[in-house]
């Protein structure tokens, strides 16, 4: 530990950032393979089996090489600067949020005192880059796609933020680590089951569960997953990235998978105990071994997040897509009133107890 602290802060930052990029890349590679496997499973087929031998594990790598080698087409009429810039901004804004994701007790980029609010802030920048991409393509269909995506993401930001307020209210902090730490000691202490700071958990139980459900559904729309995948709608509707090809198109995909992990990670940190194990005996305390405490914590955090990612994929291959008006209807007339009521009741409970 002392050795660790002797390393200058700047170098630690750089190492962490590089580690995160490697992690996100590996995750994206894995998740794309997983998505195909889940799709195959849902449709009763095998999925990729050839590339790399075991269950086509290197299929994504092959695809990525293909994308890298493909011709990069920029439409003549496009606004070249913005067209090139947009995919990177999408990825940057979702990657920036990883800085405050608590992987383990000591493994976090920066435990900002506004951690969760920072995530909400930087992920709101995704909208701008999507509009940018749709507009810069100078194609009316990608413009429509961009508008659709922007209106959807702006709308769904509200229920997401409101349902995130529930754990924040219960814990009384915006710091990610504070939000995780109160959930120690077994899964019955997780925020989703209403326990925070040992306050009357049974009363809060229904509201925290509702908050979690609203968060999870609305975050699907935030990251444009089925059943809310209108902005992309690769197969039927033309989306904002219709003019993109080669690795620029790949960047959008990359960002989408990074975002999937991000929203799952936030859900895990705020509702599902973060890096805490479901049972106390499965954890290693920091006093026993600092290294193992963090390794085990990371294992639980990533494991739980991967389960949520899997559920997202599962939903994608199970549910049909919503129509655009139904999408807005669900947001403004179902999620929004429920999350408002939820926040109101939880704040009352906090005030009373």
């Amino acid at each position, binding site marked *: 530990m002392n050795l660790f602290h002797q390393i200058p802060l700047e170098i630690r930052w750089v190492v962490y950032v590089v580690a995160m990029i490697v992690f996100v890349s590996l995750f994206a590679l894995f998740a794309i393979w997983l998505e195909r496997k889940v799709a195959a499973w849902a449709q009763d087929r095998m999925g990729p089996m050839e590339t790399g031998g075991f269950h086509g594990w290197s299929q994504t790598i092959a695809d990525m090489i293909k994308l890298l080698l493909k011709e990069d087409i920029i439409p003549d009429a496009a606004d070249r600067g913005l067209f090139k810039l947009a995919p990177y901004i999408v990825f940057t804004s979702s990657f920036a949020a990883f800085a405050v994701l608590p992987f383990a007790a000591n493994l976090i980029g920066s435990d900002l*005192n506004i951690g969760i609010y920072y995530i909400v802030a930087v992920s*709101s920048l995704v909208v*701008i880059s999507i*509009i*940018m991409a749709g*507009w810069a393509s100078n194609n009316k269909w990608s*413009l429509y796609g961009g508008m659709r995506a922007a209106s959807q993401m*702006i709308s769904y930001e509200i229920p997401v933020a409101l349902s995130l307020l529930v754990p924040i209210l219960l814990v009384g902090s915006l710091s990610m680590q504070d939000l995780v730490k109160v959930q120690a000691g077994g899964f019955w202490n997780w925020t989703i089951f209403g326990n925070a700071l040992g306050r009357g958990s049974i009363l809060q139980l229904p509201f925290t569960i509702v908050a979690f459900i609203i968060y999870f559904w609305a975050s699907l729309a935030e990251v444009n997953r089925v059943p809310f995948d209108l902005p992309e709608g690769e197969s039927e509707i033309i989306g904002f990235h219709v003019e993109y090809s080669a690795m620029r198109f790949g960047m959008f995909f990359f960002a989408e998978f990074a975002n999937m992990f991000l929203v799952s990670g936030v859900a895990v940190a705020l509702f599902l105990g973060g890096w805490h194990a479901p049972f106390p005996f499965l954890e290693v305390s920091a006093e026993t071994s600092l290294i193992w405490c963090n390794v085990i914590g990371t294992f639980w955090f990533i494991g739980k997040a991967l389960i949520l990612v899997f559920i997202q994929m599962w939903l994608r291959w199970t549910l049909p897509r919503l129509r655009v008006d139904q999408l807005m209807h669900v947001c403004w007339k179902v999620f929004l009133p429920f999350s408002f009521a939820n926040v109101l009741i939880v704040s009352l409970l906090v005030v009373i107890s």
Partner: protein
Amino acid sequence: MELILFIITALVALVSAFMVITRRTPIASVLYLVLTFFCLAVLYVMLGAQFIAAMQIVVYAGAIMVLFLFVLMLLSQRGAQTWEVAGPMRKWLGFAAAGGVLLVAATALQSVGVSDTVLDPEIGTVSSVGSALFRRFLLPFEVASVLLLGAIIGVVAMVKRKPYPSETEEGVEHGS
């Protein structure tokens, strides 16, 4: 380190602010404005006002600028839309107005001088912003909510064409 960061951020903020007013396409102006706001947020962080910084990004870059982009894209597609300043007279008037504002700001700042008081490190945290908002500025906070409520109702009242919906079928209403 901090000084270098400050200089870079300030320079980017200034350059992008200049780009906002010199671009011919409104969309480009708006995007540069987003960059300016982003740099301002970084400056807030350096002042220790993290919450204000996040607020700056959520409210300005994430909400208001997106609205601007939305409106601009709804109005027309690219090509036809460039700023046209009618006549050199107006351009100089604009410069004069901007110069006047700069002059006022300069005189104001010049007489304030550099303060050597150390800022309270807690000044930008959530709790200090929250306690200012809910103690000293409780009434303005509530009035602001009435203001926003009025604005929301007003927009709906103005946009709605039909006095009362005759057909209440969902699809028809949303489609229009």
